[in-house]
């Protein structure tokens, strides 16, 4: 089966999956108690029957459920993600407003964790059983086991409050009106804590996986052969071991990449990072259905997309893998 056929098959499947997800999401969020009109009225501390009727009519909630489903699906078929009456903005513009901040954060965390994790794992494997290995595996265990919100708050207290090195919250210095390079540096300084916090967990995962996988490959026959023909340990590690050991890491990276859009709710909340994760969380507690469905949809599309991409990367990393669909 050639790559084009493989891709077409995967895409077709992906679309079916997305459709099923869209329908499922719709019913899932309706199962949660309350609705956006009730939430708005509740927040205002005052409400009467007429206000609720007005709001439900505005949100389209007075229509039968199946009509609402149809309106929603019809919109999606024409790439219209709907309108948030709560925020008086289209869902697409809300998401696009937040997308750059989220991609910057998750992208930075992705690169940091992948780079650092692979490096740490490879180093630990080469020094297996020695003190370097112990230090790295212990660190990885600590990163892996520490709750994200605790790391987030502690890093704020230590690095912002006590040491005054970097700002604790936000995307940039509000009201400073920096431009050009000054603005880039300002954003970068705000990015440090959230990106590291978000990256820690995956760093640990990559490091552990890389180490285990390298040790496994290191015992294989072709490595013995390489050693027998007199190659230096460094070359064996890089050329023969690492390249074969990287496959599980690619799988994991594919999973993490799928979460680039929606996977940073907690980090974005604690660091007041104006991204999609917070948009989604706020929409959830406000029962802002259209926004929630929009973010769900974009996130699922990302997951489906990155799964396909991962499969392609597999084929490149290891040509022996047959794409059987």
């Amino acid at each position, binding site marked *: 089966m050639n790559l084009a056929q493989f891709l077409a098959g995967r895409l077709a499947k992906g679309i079916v999956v997305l459709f099923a997800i869209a329908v499922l999401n719709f019913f899932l969020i309706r199962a*949660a*108690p*309350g*609705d956006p009109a*009730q*939430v*708005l*009225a*509740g*927040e*205002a*501390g*005052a*409400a*009467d*029957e*007429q*206000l*609720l009727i*007005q709001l439900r009519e*505005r949100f389209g909630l007075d229509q039968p459920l199946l009509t609402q489903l149809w309106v929603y699906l019809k919109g999606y078929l024409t790439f219209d993600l709907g309108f948030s*009456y*709560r*925020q*008086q*903005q289209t869902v697409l513009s*809300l998401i696009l*407003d*937040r997308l750059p*901040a989220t991609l910057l954060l998750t992208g930075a965390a992705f690169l940091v964790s992948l780079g650092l994790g692979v490096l740490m794992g490879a180093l630990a494997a080469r020094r297996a059983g020695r003190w370097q290995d112990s230090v790295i595996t212990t660190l990885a265990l600590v990163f892996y086991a520490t709750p994200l919100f605790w790391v987030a*708050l502690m890093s*704020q*207290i230590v690095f*912002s*409050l006590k040491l*005054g090195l970097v*700002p*604790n*919250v*936000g*995307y940039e210095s*509000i*009201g400073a009106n920096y431009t050009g390079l000054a603005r880039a540096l300002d954003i970068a300084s705000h990015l440090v804590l959230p990106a590291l916090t978000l990256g820690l967990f995956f760093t640990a995962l990559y490091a552990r996986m890389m180490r285990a996988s390298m040790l496994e490959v290191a015992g294989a026959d072709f490595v013995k052969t390489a050693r027998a023909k007199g190659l230096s340990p460094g070359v064996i590690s890089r050329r023969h071991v690492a390249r074969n050991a990287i496959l599980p890491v690619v799988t994991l990276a594919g999973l993490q990449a799928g979460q680039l859009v929606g996977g940073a709710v907690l980090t974005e*909340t*604690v*660091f*007041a990072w*104006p*991204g999609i994760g*917070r*948009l989604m969380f*706020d929409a959830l*507690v*406000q*029962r802002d259905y259209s926004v929630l469905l929009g973010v769900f949809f974009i996130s699922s599309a990302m997951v489906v997309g990155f799964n396909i991409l991962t499969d392609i990367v597999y084929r490149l990393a290891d040509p022996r893998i047959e794409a059987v669909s």
Partner: protein
Amino acid sequence: MTGLRLGLALAASVLALGVAQAQTPTPKKGGTVHVVVQPEPPMLMQGLNQNGPTNMVAGNIYESLLRYNEKLEPQPSLAKSWEISPDAKVYTFKLQEGVTWHDGKPFTADDVVFTLDKFLREVHPRWRPIVNAQVEKIEKVDDLTVTITLKQPFGPLIMTQEVASAPMIPKHIYDGTDYRANPANNTPIGTGPFKLKEWKKGSYIHLVKNENYWLKGKPNLDEIYWQIIPDAAARAVAYETGKVDVLTGGSVDVYDVARLAKLPNTCMTTKGWEMFAPHAWLTPNVRNGILGNKQFRQGLMYAIDREFGREVVWGGLGKLPTGPISSKTKFYSSDVPLYAFDPKKAKELIKASGYKGETIRLLNLPYGETWTRWTEAIKQNLEDVGVKVQVENTDVPGWTQKASNWDFDLNFNFLYQLGDPAMGVARSYITSNIAKGNPFANVGGYSNPEVDKLFAEAAIAPTDKERQELYTKVQKLLADELPVLWLLEMDFPTIYRCNVKNLVTTGIGVDDGFRDAWKE
């Protein structure tokens, strides 16, 4: 009476002015203040939305006819002066001269009539019942004069013109449009001291000085940034590292308040909430079996260590209430039966009520850790006197739905008093307000014709003295009957840098405080 009231109001404001000038140095011009707003408001069009955070920001963009000082006395705002006819049925408001909207169009009596008679009547859940029940007509006399004619005397009317309750809306932008779909909702146009410059969703709201503000020399500040920081602990660190200057009421955890208040150059005040005077209580669902029994409810009241709640759970903030009306507002009476913490007496009353060990479902209010701790403390109190309690947790929409649909045995809530018992108090106890769909209605289902009658008469009694007599009676009656178990007159402290001056000077605090605030 009219002349006297007006005279007193004027005298009071002149006096207040004199005192203020004697005490404070001349305000400095310019400067930027960073303020925390939590959570992010859904919109800033105050006529359509009156959420707490909306009011905090939009109350500095929009204005109403009157303002209220910390004693809840009406002060001039867009109305320069006002007169009440001898029969207390006609209110005449004279408007300020030279007021313009942020888009440059003049503000006139037409806007006032449009706002009160059309716009707010259609969309505002608090103004609608008042205008429909009490007001006969709202008329323009000339460009700068408006009269409101009542069907019968209604003393509380003078308390209804606070900016969240009756913000003035520009007629030229909204008349004839679908209000809730008007694109101008994203670019609010008011008459207030600040204008919306930019709203970066998820990050901040930027307000800038209105250069053409009608009150010459105001505002003093150039800019306000309202920052959106969703995590309470991160907000505290943001204040400590200097990112924000003002932590508005309720924006940091109770246990952080005392620590933050001790920081250098830090001031704290619990003022600025007099108009709202949040009153917290437990609502028993009197439809549900034993909760309909007065003795049982009294037993619960004796069983709850309310002072522990105030001192420990709320960090010593607030005051124990004695009845339905907050001691911070008018018409409060302390002549009521009191309930000291007394588990022995509680046990006796609960036994006498015929309680047979049914499980009572206690619905926690999902507004953060403090409420959860309070729920746990009260569960402990009740179990100590032999009442079986099962705590129910949910999120905010879930709570709203359960409370609105009467799906609870005991439910936490806190309501604003809104300056007058006719607006903020009666709604929780009168029969006509037993309606599903609204968590702030009479959700417990208590109904007593005598209470209904007293509240109805008190609302329209012509003089304050007569109103006080009726409210004193109803407070005494309710404190015996306990339709709800009052727990706390809540305080929401505002923490700010001491060099931000004159921030809290009115009955709604920061909500309209930036008109007069300045930075040293």
